[in-house]
């Protein structure tokens, strides 16, 4: 980094929130750093204060209870999530998407919460979490609020998060635990790459739902489909919902086409 800042590693959430409330937009929250430090290096982010939240014990919490649901603390890494047995067992879509996120090294640092807070249209965790109706637990000095993920991300790299707030955790209700699911991602190489376009499918109780990344300013969740809905109908609904763009990674035409292809493949794979 050539950009200088001061570093704070509060040991409690209260302390962290106090710092954020003091520094506001001059501060940036550091967890895995796989976006923040890249952005600082590129000059896209120039915080004066970096608040490392990894020393806050409660943000490391990762728990699942069939009654209560899944809690993914802000500092749980993607690899910790993948290694947590209930994920492979009960949240197949998270497992599949997490395994596709970046490289093994990066997954030791990157966090699912960070992936959501970055709010990139191609964040691998976003459409799967949308399918699971995840909620984002946001805390500030004076309040705690829960925001549905679909309302949390408001645009390309924008969220409802205020500079004085921290996402404490992602909460996934137990509703879709054990659901069959799949995740397919278009990449430019077979190795690690951002999702040029990606589709998540979760099947549950006679219906299934589809989430889509990189095909609109925000990750999308389509309305539920009844089991047995013909592929063409699902593809048509998806085509209507997406608004892909042309960029260096792909044309909108091929993005739209591959969304349809992945829907068909996932419906076959998951048996929707």
């Amino acid at each position, binding site marked *: 980094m*050539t*950009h*200088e800042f001061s570093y704070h590693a509060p040991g409690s959430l209260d302390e962290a929130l106090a710092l954020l409330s003091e520094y506001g937009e001059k501060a940036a929250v550091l967890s895995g750093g796989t976006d923040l430090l890249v952005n600082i290096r590129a000059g896209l982010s120039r915080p004066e204060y970096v608040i490392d939240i990894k020393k806050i014990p409660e943000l490391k919490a990762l728990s699942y209870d069939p009654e209560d649901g899944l809690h993914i603390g802000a500092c749980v890494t993607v690899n910790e999530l993948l290694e947590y047995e209930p994920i492979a067992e009960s949240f197949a879509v998270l497992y599949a998407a997490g395994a596709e996120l970046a490289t093994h090294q990066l997954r030791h640092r990157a966090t699912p919460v960070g992936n959501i807070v970055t709010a990139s249209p191609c964040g691998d965790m976003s459409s799967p979490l949308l399918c699971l109706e995840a909620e984002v637990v946001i805390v500030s000095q004076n309040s705690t609020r829960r925001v549905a993920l679909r309302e949390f991300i408001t645009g390309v790299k924008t969220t409802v998060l205020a500079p004085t707030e921290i996402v404490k955790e992602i909460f996934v209700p137990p509703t879709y635990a054990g659901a069959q699911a799949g995740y397919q991602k*278009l990449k*430019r*190489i*077979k*190795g*690690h*790459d*951002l999702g040029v376009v990606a589709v998540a499918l979760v099947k549950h109780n006679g219906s299934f739902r589809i989430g889509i990344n990189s095909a609109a300013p925000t990750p999308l969740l389509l309305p539920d489909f009844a089991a047995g809905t013909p592929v063409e109908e699902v593809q048509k609904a998806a085509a209507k919902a997406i608004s892909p763009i*042309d960029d*260096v*990674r*792909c*044309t909108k*035409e*091929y993005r739209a*086409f*591959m969304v349809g*292809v992945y829907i068909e493949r996932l419906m076959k794979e998951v048996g929707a």
Partner: protein
Amino acid sequence: MLEQIPAAELRYVGKRTPRIDAKEKLTGQATYVSDMVLSGMLYARVKTSPHARARIVSINTEKARKLPGVRAVVIGEELDYRVGLYVVDKAILARNEVRHYGEAVAAVAADSIEIAQKAVDLIDVEYEVLKPVLHPLDALKDDAPLVHPNLGEYDYMEAAFTPKPGTNIANHTKLRKGDVEKAFEEAEWTIEREYTNPSVQHVPMETHVAIVKWGYDDEVTIWSSAQSPFTLRNLFCTAFRLPHRNVRVIVPHVGGGFGGKAGIGIEPLVAVLSKKAGGAPVKLTATREQEFSLLPCRSQLTYRIKTGVSKDGKILGQKMTMYWDSGAYADYAVNVTRASGYSAGGPYEIPNAQVDAYTIYTNKPFGTAYRGFGHVEFHWGLERHMDLIARAIGMDPLEFRKRNALREGSTSLTGEKIRANTGSILKCLEAAESAVGYGTLTEAEKARQEKTGMKIGKAVVGLHKAPAMPPFTATAVILRMNEDSTVTATLSLTDYGQGTYTSIAQMIAERLGFPIQKVKIAFESDTDHDPYDWQTVASKGLLLSGNAAILAAEDLLKNAYEIAAQALRCQVVDLDHDAEKIFIRHHPESSVTFRQLAIGYCYPNGNSIGGPLIGVGRYIAQGLTHLDKDTGQGLPALDWTYGAHGMIVEVDEHTGEYNVLKVASVFDVGKVINPDAVRGQAIGGMLQGLGTATCEGYIYDQEGHLLNPSFTDNKIPTAKDLPLEVESISVETPQIDGPYGARGVGEHSMIAVAAALGNALQNATGAQITHMPLRFEDVWRAIQRREPVDNWITKSPYGSCRSAPEVQRHQQQEC
């Protein structure tokens, strides 16, 4: 010339031998320039242009200069120097006008990297943005803006190049053989197509980095991650009008180059910072992003080929027009143009040929040498064209290649007679053919098709390349015997990963008859200590430096024998030696050890003779000529390495997704010196070629901004991108003047890989693609017969993807 040891008796040549540099690199102890810190060293950062073409109205450096810790700030206006390899067209920092996105406009040296960056951010540059010329074919138009209005005033190498003042043409290479128009008249078919490649980046893992200390009395020391210390010194001295004795270039380990570090790069800029900072050493490390646009890339190529073919499938004539996009500066691109021009027809006999190869200036990051030196690019077009011709005339593409392959008695484009010892393209094609089971599908492959629903396609392509180098290319090796009779070789051919030093150690051990453990090749190259070598480029190192090494070993032995003859009171002809001693052949007990001779032989009474044993080997390319500027005739080729790739792919016809199942790469290397090194070059180069075929390439917007200067959007192959199976096969037709019969193979593995992919995809699906890279989307579009996406240079009248099929036989026919 070179006394050869019979193959059966070889102890090191051709045998598996670990790399001499491996342990140092494996332990993390090998030193690269990026690892170096000198005392008092300053750190440099560069301010680069955000525009493709703009007039510099003003540069305000006041705030930067006032920042504590800043030791030097330089801008182009104060630097009256021009640098250039073949055409001296580049300022150290842009003056008056910036000519490409990412061009350096100012630079700072400071106590820390942080201060340097802060100072760079404080420099204000006011630009008047001008309309850039981006596509080479646009740049040829009469009303095109001139990238270099002063082209006529620049120095250039007149023996080889022809810049055209008042145009954007930096060079026009012409070749004329026979009567091509008459050949077209006699042809049964004429087939004309156009093929394009985007610019790509070398991506050495170590970015460009240099430390320069401009000492008292203009004594300059340069440590650089560079391939060619002597060429770097020569160009540096020319630019700064310094005597060569004043400048010392040191090259320690280099983290990859692939041609991108062949010439001169950031060194002059670092040098002026050091000079301005009062002689403190200054270090500049290019960021990965700067590697894409501050440093050069590989040129874009538009290649138009028109071929006349006889009824029985023989090529009668071929007209080849190349538009090389030089970018803003000529650098190596003019020589890429020349070298591609004289081998533009590939390893095939073309009795009547016309080549017009243009190097064209545009407002883009400039092109330089890159592994293959133009041959990767034009073989894409040529080897796609060979398949398209074969399809058009109803012949199997491999059969068409074999029928037209160069063979003993053929004449090359420049009039060179191909001899039996030149090598065998036919053997390469046949080996690739059998390695991939060309022409049929095995039962397993059929079953795989059934299972996956994907279609399998196969292809075999041929390739050739000779070193692109001046006819006077020379090198030398000095071999010194140490006190204990081990030997140390010094040379300034560099080993930046390709492994040549290990092969040279094997040859020296072989020729001396010493165990290889006694042979050291000094890794660091240093123009003050090592003998001259032109450049480490062109796949010529093994041949030229290998010969020089053998000569140095012979010279050392000769010198040792002379002293031994005196010591043993005999004639030199009666002597022989083993690893330890020189002895009289018929009285082996009468001997003197190398250890006794190493620094001079001392008689029992103290009288001494000889002195330190040194062997010198010099080698210069033999019998080459400049090419005639109007006809391209002459002898440019030290040696030709022929090769072929066989490829098997499977494609999803619905989506364009594909997997490369197998690549078999075959090269006629003359003689394998180090099997693992050959294999490493074959597979490593193949994957680099596959990278450019599948995913790499510069993407610009219409203003000439480079949109993907990082690994985020310029992917390179990972381990997952390796084909399921790779095979490396060597053909050995000894090169008469090659060391132990060897010839170079460093670049060849990358050539024609893309065409193999394009042809295999077409064989599987009918997808006709004439542009690179071949992303899934491109394959999908081609299968669907949709308009190709032209996002390398958008909306140019000559889109880089377009290629109208033009096939003529009595009536039009689609190919």
